Protein backbone atom coordinates (compact mmCIF):
# COMPACT_ATOMS: atom_id res chain seq x y z
CA UNK A 1 0.00 0.00 0.00
CA UNK A 2 1.46 3.34 -1.08
CA UNK A 3 2.30 5.84 1.64
CA UNK A 4 0.22 8.97 1.55
CA UNK A 5 1.77 12.26 0.55
CA UNK A 6 1.74 15.26 2.86
CA UNK A 7 -0.89 16.80 0.61
CA UNK A 8 -3.15 13.73 0.88
CA UNK A 9 -2.82 13.75 4.67
CA UNK A 10 -3.69 17.45 4.71
CA UNK A 11 -6.68 16.80 2.42
CA UNK A 12 -7.97 14.12 4.78
CA UNK A 13 -7.77 16.53 7.73
CA UNK A 14 -9.56 19.21 5.72
CA UNK A 15 -12.19 16.75 4.44
CA UNK A 16 -13.05 15.62 7.93
CA UNK A 17 -13.14 19.16 9.25
CA UNK A 18 -15.07 18.95 12.49
CA UNK A 19 -15.29 15.15 12.99
CA UNK A 20 -18.40 15.50 15.16
CA UNK A 21 -20.17 17.33 12.34
CA UNK A 22 -19.11 14.66 9.83
CA UNK A 23 -20.42 11.92 12.11
CA UNK A 24 -23.67 13.84 12.57
CA UNK A 25 -24.16 14.09 8.78
CA UNK A 26 -23.44 10.39 8.29
CA UNK A 27 -25.91 9.45 11.03
CA UNK A 28 -28.65 11.68 9.60
CA UNK A 29 -28.13 10.18 6.17
CA UNK A 30 -28.21 6.65 7.62
CA UNK A 31 -31.44 7.44 9.46
CA UNK A 32 -32.99 8.58 6.18
CA UNK A 33 -31.71 5.42 4.46
CA UNK A 34 -33.38 3.36 7.18
CA UNK A 35 -36.61 5.27 6.54
CA UNK A 36 -36.31 4.41 2.83
CA UNK A 37 -35.64 0.72 3.49
CA UNK A 38 -38.40 0.26 6.05
CA UNK A 39 -40.97 2.07 3.87
CA UNK A 40 -39.81 0.85 0.46
CA UNK A 41 -42.96 -1.11 -0.42
CA UNK A 42 -45.22 1.86 0.32
CA UNK A 43 -42.93 4.32 -1.44
CA UNK A 44 -42.86 2.13 -4.55
CA UNK A 45 -46.68 2.27 -4.62
CA UNK A 46 -46.90 6.00 -3.86
CA UNK A 47 -44.11 7.18 -6.19
CA UNK A 48 -43.87 4.66 -9.05
CA UNK A 49 -41.02 5.42 -11.50
CA UNK A 50 -40.33 8.73 -9.75
CA UNK A 51 -37.25 10.19 -8.13
CA UNK A 52 -37.78 11.04 -4.47
CA UNK A 53 -35.82 13.10 -1.95
CA UNK A 54 -35.86 11.92 1.66
CA UNK A 55 -34.72 14.23 4.45
CA UNK A 56 -35.55 14.16 8.16
CA UNK A 57 -37.30 10.79 7.63
CA UNK A 58 -39.83 12.31 5.23
CA UNK A 59 -40.31 12.41 1.48
CA UNK A 60 -39.75 16.11 0.86
CA UNK A 61 -40.03 16.10 -2.94
CA UNK A 62 -40.78 13.80 -5.86
CA UNK A 63 -40.38 14.26 -9.62
CA UNK A 64 -40.30 12.30 -12.85
CA UNK A 65 -36.71 13.27 -13.61
CA UNK A 66 -33.63 13.75 -11.48
CA UNK A 67 -33.11 17.27 -12.83
CA UNK A 68 -36.67 18.28 -11.83
CA UNK A 69 -36.11 16.78 -8.39
CA UNK A 70 -32.87 18.74 -7.93
CA UNK A 71 -34.73 21.96 -8.80
CA UNK A 72 -37.46 21.10 -6.27
CA UNK A 73 -34.82 20.33 -3.63
CA UNK A 74 -33.14 23.68 -4.25
CA UNK A 75 -36.51 25.49 -3.99
CA UNK A 76 -37.09 23.78 -0.63
CA UNK A 77 -33.61 24.70 0.58
CA UNK A 78 -32.62 21.11 1.27
CA UNK A 79 -28.90 20.71 2.02
CA UNK A 80 -27.22 19.51 -1.16
CA UNK A 81 -25.26 16.36 -0.55
CA UNK A 82 -27.07 15.26 2.58
CA UNK A 83 -30.38 14.09 1.13
CA UNK A 84 -31.21 10.48 0.21
CA UNK A 85 -32.18 10.58 -3.46
CA UNK A 86 -33.71 7.42 -4.87
CA UNK A 87 -35.43 6.34 -8.07
CA UNK A 88 -38.45 4.20 -7.20
CA UNK A 89 -37.89 1.45 -9.72
CA UNK A 90 -41.16 -0.51 -9.92
CA UNK A 91 -39.74 -2.62 -12.75
CA UNK A 92 -36.84 -3.78 -10.55
CA UNK A 93 -34.36 -3.34 -13.37
CA UNK A 94 -31.67 -6.02 -13.24
CA UNK A 95 -28.11 -4.78 -13.01
CA UNK A 96 -25.00 -6.78 -13.97
CA UNK A 97 -22.01 -4.64 -13.02
Amino acid at each position, binding site marked *: *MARLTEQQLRE*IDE*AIGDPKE*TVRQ*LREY*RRDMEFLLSNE*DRLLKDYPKQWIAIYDSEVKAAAES*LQSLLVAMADLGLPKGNVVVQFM*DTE*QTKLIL
Partner: protein
Amino acid sequence: MLKGSFGKASGRPFIESKIDFPRLQISGTVKLLVDTGADNCILMPADCDMLGIDWSQLRGGQNVFGVGGSSKTYREPAVLMFEDDDNRLHSYSTPLAIMAPAPTQLPQMPSLLGRDILSRWKMTYDPIFEILTFEVHSADQTLQP
Protein backbone atom coordinates in the same frame (compact mmCIF):
# COMPACT_ATOMS: atom_id res chain seq x y z
CA MET B 1 -17.17 -2.51 12.70
CA LEU B 2 -18.87 -0.81 9.75
CA LYS B 3 -22.45 -1.73 8.94
CA GLY B 4 -24.12 -1.79 5.54
CA SER B 5 -27.66 -2.61 4.51
CA PHE B 6 -29.57 -4.47 1.83
CA GLY B 7 -32.18 -2.93 -0.47
CA LYS B 8 -35.49 -4.50 0.49
CA ALA B 9 -36.74 -4.96 -3.07
CA SER B 10 -33.44 -5.24 -4.92
CA GLY B 11 -31.41 -7.11 -2.30
CA ARG B 12 -28.42 -4.98 -3.29
CA PRO B 13 -25.76 -4.39 -0.61
CA PHE B 14 -25.08 -0.75 0.23
CA ILE B 15 -23.00 1.30 2.62
CA GLU B 16 -23.08 5.05 3.21
CA SER B 17 -20.00 7.21 2.84
CA LYS B 18 -19.30 10.89 3.12
CA ILE B 19 -17.18 11.89 0.13
CA ASP B 20 -15.12 15.06 -0.07
CA PHE B 21 -13.51 16.44 -3.22
CA PRO B 22 -10.80 18.81 -1.95
CA ARG B 23 -10.00 20.44 -5.30
CA LEU B 24 -13.67 21.06 -6.12
CA GLN B 25 -14.53 22.01 -2.53
CA ILE B 26 -17.61 19.79 -2.65
CA SER B 27 -18.70 17.16 -0.18
CA GLY B 28 -21.75 15.10 0.56
CA THR B 29 -23.03 11.70 1.62
CA VAL B 30 -23.86 8.98 -0.88
CA LYS B 31 -24.88 5.34 -0.79
CA LEU B 32 -22.41 3.02 -2.49
CA LEU B 33 -23.20 -0.39 -3.92
CA VAL B 34 -20.70 -2.90 -2.52
CA ASP B 35 -19.07 -4.41 -5.63
CA THR B 36 -16.14 -6.79 -5.22
CA GLY B 37 -15.97 -6.98 -9.02
CA ALA B 38 -15.09 -3.31 -9.37
CA ASP B 39 -11.36 -2.57 -9.29
CA ASN B 40 -12.01 0.95 -8.02
CA CYS B 41 -14.76 3.05 -6.52
CA ILE B 42 -16.78 4.93 -9.10
CA LEU B 43 -19.26 7.75 -8.77
CA MET B 44 -22.19 7.68 -11.19
CA PRO B 45 -23.64 10.77 -12.91
CA ALA B 46 -26.80 10.93 -10.77
CA ASP B 47 -24.74 11.21 -7.58
CA CYS B 48 -22.48 13.79 -9.24
CA ASP B 49 -25.51 15.92 -10.13
CA MET B 50 -26.90 15.44 -6.64
CA LEU B 51 -23.62 16.66 -5.12
CA GLY B 52 -23.54 19.61 -7.49
CA ILE B 53 -20.34 18.67 -9.33
CA ASP B 54 -19.60 20.94 -12.28
CA TRP B 55 -18.76 18.62 -15.18
CA SER B 56 -16.63 21.29 -16.87
CA GLN B 57 -14.25 21.25 -13.89
CA LEU B 58 -13.39 17.54 -14.20
CA ARG B 59 -10.12 16.25 -15.66
CA GLY B 60 -8.37 13.11 -16.73
CA GLY B 61 -10.69 11.34 -19.13
CA GLN B 62 -10.02 7.60 -19.19
CA ASN B 63 -12.01 4.61 -20.41
CA VAL B 64 -13.09 1.89 -17.98
CA PHE B 65 -14.62 -1.43 -19.01
CA GLY B 66 -17.68 -3.25 -17.71
CA VAL B 67 -20.04 -5.90 -19.05
CA GLY B 68 -21.69 -3.24 -21.24
CA GLY B 69 -18.43 -2.17 -22.88
CA SER B 70 -16.27 0.87 -22.25
CA SER B 71 -17.26 4.14 -20.64
CA LYS B 72 -15.46 7.41 -20.25
CA THR B 73 -14.54 8.43 -16.73
CA TYR B 74 -12.81 11.33 -15.07
CA ARG B 75 -10.47 10.97 -12.10
CA GLU B 76 -10.70 13.26 -9.13
CA PRO B 77 -8.81 13.13 -5.81
CA ALA B 78 -11.30 12.33 -3.07
CA VAL B 79 -11.55 11.42 0.59
CA LEU B 80 -14.12 8.77 1.54
CA MET B 81 -15.25 8.59 5.18
CA PHE B 82 -17.12 5.82 7.02
CA GLU B 83 -18.34 5.67 10.61
CA ASP B 84 -18.16 2.43 12.57
CA ASP B 85 -20.32 1.30 15.48
CA ASP B 86 -17.66 2.44 17.99
CA ASN B 87 -18.12 6.01 16.67
CA ARG B 88 -14.76 5.97 14.90
CA LEU B 89 -14.35 7.70 11.59
CA HIS B 90 -12.24 5.82 9.00
CA SER B 91 -10.96 7.88 6.06
CA TYR B 92 -9.42 6.92 2.72
CA SER B 93 -7.68 9.15 0.22
CA THR B 94 -8.21 7.80 -3.29
CA PRO B 95 -8.45 9.01 -6.88
CA LEU B 96 -12.16 8.48 -7.44
CA ALA B 97 -13.41 7.60 -10.93
CA ILE B 98 -16.38 9.66 -12.03
CA MET B 99 -18.47 8.21 -14.83
CA ALA B 100 -19.21 10.67 -17.62
CA PRO B 101 -22.91 10.91 -18.54
CA ALA B 102 -23.92 8.97 -21.65
CA PRO B 103 -27.31 8.62 -23.39
CA THR B 104 -27.35 4.82 -23.00
CA GLN B 105 -26.86 4.90 -19.22
CA LEU B 106 -29.64 4.11 -16.79
CA PRO B 107 -29.98 7.28 -14.72
CA GLN B 108 -30.49 5.26 -11.53
CA MET B 109 -27.17 3.38 -11.82
CA PRO B 110 -25.68 3.23 -8.30
CA SER B 111 -22.20 4.44 -7.45
CA LEU B 112 -19.82 1.62 -6.58
CA LEU B 113 -17.58 0.82 -3.63
CA GLY B 114 -14.73 -1.08 -5.25
CA ARG B 115 -11.76 -3.13 -4.18
CA ASP B 116 -9.44 -0.16 -3.70
CA ILE B 117 -11.25 0.20 -0.36
CA LEU B 118 -12.91 -3.22 0.09
CA SER B 119 -9.47 -4.91 0.03
CA ARG B 120 -8.67 -3.08 3.25
CA TRP B 121 -11.67 -4.58 5.06
CA LYS B 122 -12.96 -8.02 6.00
CA MET B 123 -16.55 -8.33 4.80
CA THR B 124 -19.35 -10.48 6.22
CA TYR B 125 -22.09 -10.82 3.59
CA ASP B 126 -25.14 -12.70 4.84
CA PRO B 127 -28.30 -11.58 3.03
CA ILE B 128 -30.44 -14.36 4.55
CA PHE B 129 -29.98 -12.83 8.01
CA GLU B 130 -29.52 -9.30 6.63
CA ILE B 131 -25.98 -9.01 7.97
CA LEU B 132 -23.54 -6.85 6.06
CA THR B 133 -20.57 -5.84 8.17
CA PHE B 134 -16.99 -4.79 7.53
CA GLU B 135 -14.04 -5.13 9.87
CA VAL B 136 -11.55 -2.38 9.09
CA HIS B 137 -8.03 -3.78 8.68
CA SER B 138 -6.52 -0.46 7.68
CA ALA B 139 -7.46 3.12 6.94
CA ASP B 140 -5.49 6.19 5.92
CA GLN B 141 -6.74 7.85 9.06
CA THR B 142 -8.94 6.75 11.95
CA LEU B 143 -10.40 9.28 14.34
CA GLN B 144 -12.49 8.98 17.48
CA PRO B 145 -14.50 12.23 17.55
